[in-house]
């Protein structure tokens, strides 16, 4: 079995080698759509040009099963992968990714601040380097609430003051956090208190009850694809929806949809790049070189031209501010749209990947059991 798959891979490799040009091709794997587009235009193409290589963007649907299968088959074809925080932890533990010596591998900010200080928070594992920060915030339909709209995370759970259906994410991730934030545990800056509460059975129960209260009588729609929340709001199916800020931005600014984002109680979540151990450009060092360049101050700012996700480096914001209006349409200021902007981070939590790596399965089971009883 193993030898056969090796043989097949060898053949496909031989074909790919003979058909591709002689320039080095680094394969970067990401989520596709507008997001990969922003990565390609923002830093992929400039990096490829500067280094004289090709960067091939491949789409995948997340998770580590493909790369694990590549490793088990003995032939790895990916160099760089765009992953969730939890996947960097699990993949690092499994030995799938290269561990970084952070300040040595990644360049400092223009003012000389070492990379580890320039990035927004610490990395969840030694294999990760930050790429963008996005937000789990919520938006409401300005048609449903033309006058006084909801302003806080408590308003999202207040069905008396703001009647109507809600859309929330299908899994427990971030839902338990906002439930506690709405139930009176103030996240403040970072949300440590929320995770402290969720580490106790009582806290989990409290969060589940808050969700049950909100979703009783079929009052919730559970969304699974990122395109759903703006769609549900625009069609009038729900009046408020949690979602990813980039998607809301596209609907609100890009398409002029009648929705408005609320940043109170937002959860900041992260995307990372990892470098595959034993990938085709691991030994020659090209994958690491490309990765270091793609995540420098200027390059990261580049991607925010195309999508409303925040660059990881604090120093990138200065470049954006100097270049406003930064959005590709040439008239929208991007800094206020960033999840990390000061006016958006008055009350927020950082999604804790270690907590979810620890408790994800068990909380997922409890969440499904709760949903089954709705």
């Amino acid at each position, binding site marked *: 079995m193993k030898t056969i798959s090796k043989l097949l891979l060898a053949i496909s490799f031989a074909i790919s080698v003979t058909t591709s040009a002689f320039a080095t091709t680094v394969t970067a794997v990401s989520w596709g759509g507008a997001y990969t587009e922003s990565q390609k235009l923002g830093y992929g193409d400039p990096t490829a040009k500067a280094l004289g290589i090709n960067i091939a963007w491949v789409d995948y649907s997340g998770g580590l*099963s493909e790369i694990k299968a590549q490793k088990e088959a003995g032939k790895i074809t990916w160099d760089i992968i765009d992953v969730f925080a939890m996947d960097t932890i699990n993949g690092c533990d499994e030995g799938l990714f290269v561990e970084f010596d952070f300040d040595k591998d990644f360049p400092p900010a223009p003012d000389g601040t070492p990379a580890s200080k320039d990035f927004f928070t610490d990395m969840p594992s030694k294999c990760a380097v930050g790429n963008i920060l996005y937000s789990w915030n919520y938006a409401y339909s300005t048609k449903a609430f033309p006058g006084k709209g909801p302003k806080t995370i408590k308003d999202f759970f207040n069905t008396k003051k703001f009647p109507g259906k809600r859309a929330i994410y299908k899994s427990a991730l971030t839902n338990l956090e906002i439930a506690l934030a709405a139930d009176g545990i103030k996240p403040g800056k970072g949300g440590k208190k929320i995770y402290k509460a969720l580490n106790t059975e009582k806290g989990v129960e409290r969060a589940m009850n808050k969700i049950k209260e909100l979703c009783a009588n079929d009052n919730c729609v559970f969304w699974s694809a990122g395109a759903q929340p703006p769609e549900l709001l625009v069609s*009038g199916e729900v009046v408020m929806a949690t979602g990813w800020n980039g998607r809301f931005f596209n609907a609100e600014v890009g398409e002029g949809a009648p929705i408005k984002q609320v940043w109170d109680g937002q959860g900041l979540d992260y995307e990372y790049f990892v470098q595959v151990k034993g990938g085709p450009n691991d030994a020659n060092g090209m994958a690491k070189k490309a990765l270091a360049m793609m995540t420098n101050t200027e390059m990261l700012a580049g991607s925010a031209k195309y999508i409303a996700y925040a660059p990881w480096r604090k120093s990138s914001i200065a470049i954006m501010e100097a270049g406003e209006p930064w959005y590709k349409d040439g008239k929208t200021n991007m800094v206020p749209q960033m999840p990390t902007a000061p006016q958006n981070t008055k009350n927020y939590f950082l999604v804790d990947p*270690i907590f979810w790596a*620890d*408790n*994800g*399965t068990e909380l997922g089971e409890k969440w499904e059991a709760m949903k*089954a009883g709705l």
Partner: protein
Amino acid sequence: MSSESQQILTTDGIPLEVSLKKAERRNKIKAFLLVAPLLLFLIITYVFPIGDMLMRSVDDKMVTEMLPKTFKAMEKWNGKELPEEEVFEAFYLDFRQLVDEKREGKLSTQLNYTKNGFKSIIKKLRRKSKNFEEGNYKEQIMAVHKRWADVEYWKAIKRRAPAFTGQKYLKGMDMYKNENGEIVSVEEDRRIHRILWLRTLEIAFFVTLFCFLMAYPIAHLLATLPMKYSNLLMICVLLPFWTSLLVRTASWMILLQQQGVVNDLFVGIGLVADDARPQMMYNKTGTYVAMTQILLPFMVLPLYSVMKTISPSLMRAGKSLGGTPIVAFWKVYFPLTIPGIGAGCLLCFILAIGYYITPALVGGASGTLISNQIAFHMKSTLDWSFASAMGLMLLSGVLAIYWVYNKLVGIDNIKLG
């Protein structure tokens, strides 16, 4: 006198029996070579992967050989109170070894499957254990995190001692084997798999039923109409079959949501009030409607191909022998279509049982099925052994249905065309 003299010989002097066998053998080899590519294909794409899954689902050697000293020391432990110092010491020694080999991450992943909460405390232990002093490891390990002083976590480690285990199958039924060797259920608020199994079976059953009820008249019409109409109808059946699954699901969402086309129509003709629009999406109704439409061709086609072969004169004969149309249909026509019904129902049921994109998109709170759970463990937690176990449970369920069908109807009585 001897047997040799009685043997029949061929012209070149070889006994006939041997010669015949030789010719036959050559034919056998030829026949085998002809089917060999298919056989090889089946072995590589079915038998190997399923065997591999089976091995993965019971193989637990990895943890056994990661913590050899610990498991040896644990043999004397009664498994009730916290273990003695020697268990802690053995665990510490094993753990240092793993840290040196950079394998403690794998251990943390594996133990986290058995009990959630191991990931962070093993990371913490790795950091702290560098500065451990010799002796009294129990105190030192317990000081790292309060979970290390919780006996439940040590019980969880002990559960991983055997090299082969059926724990993953028990987990798929929300059960586990406790330290006394009894099989018990997990806490009530975590019993999710049983709910999912039942929900999956329920949805698959009803979707198959609805498909059958809708497809039977369609197939009958297709088989009896003149060719020029039936061809058009056939295209109507096949067109959605060729359309992407996601497109069809999304269309149903646009049609059925509360502000959707169907509801607008109902309000427009005054069937329901504007503020009392019925909920047809994000619940089971949505799942049934969308899945039935998607799987309908799989029922129509086998039924049609069987009905096409039934001669119309049989029904006429039934009627001329005195049966009313209903009796003639029930006694003559229906039994003849059973091979098609069997094929269609099996096909629909097997496809429905493994479906998960459509229910996840249109099913709302009830949209999670067992295959979503398998995908979750394949992609997110990387617990492939648990995913394999659940996959095999699903497979054996399908095989059981096949067996029941074989007993009731007979498997040679199945016809796809």
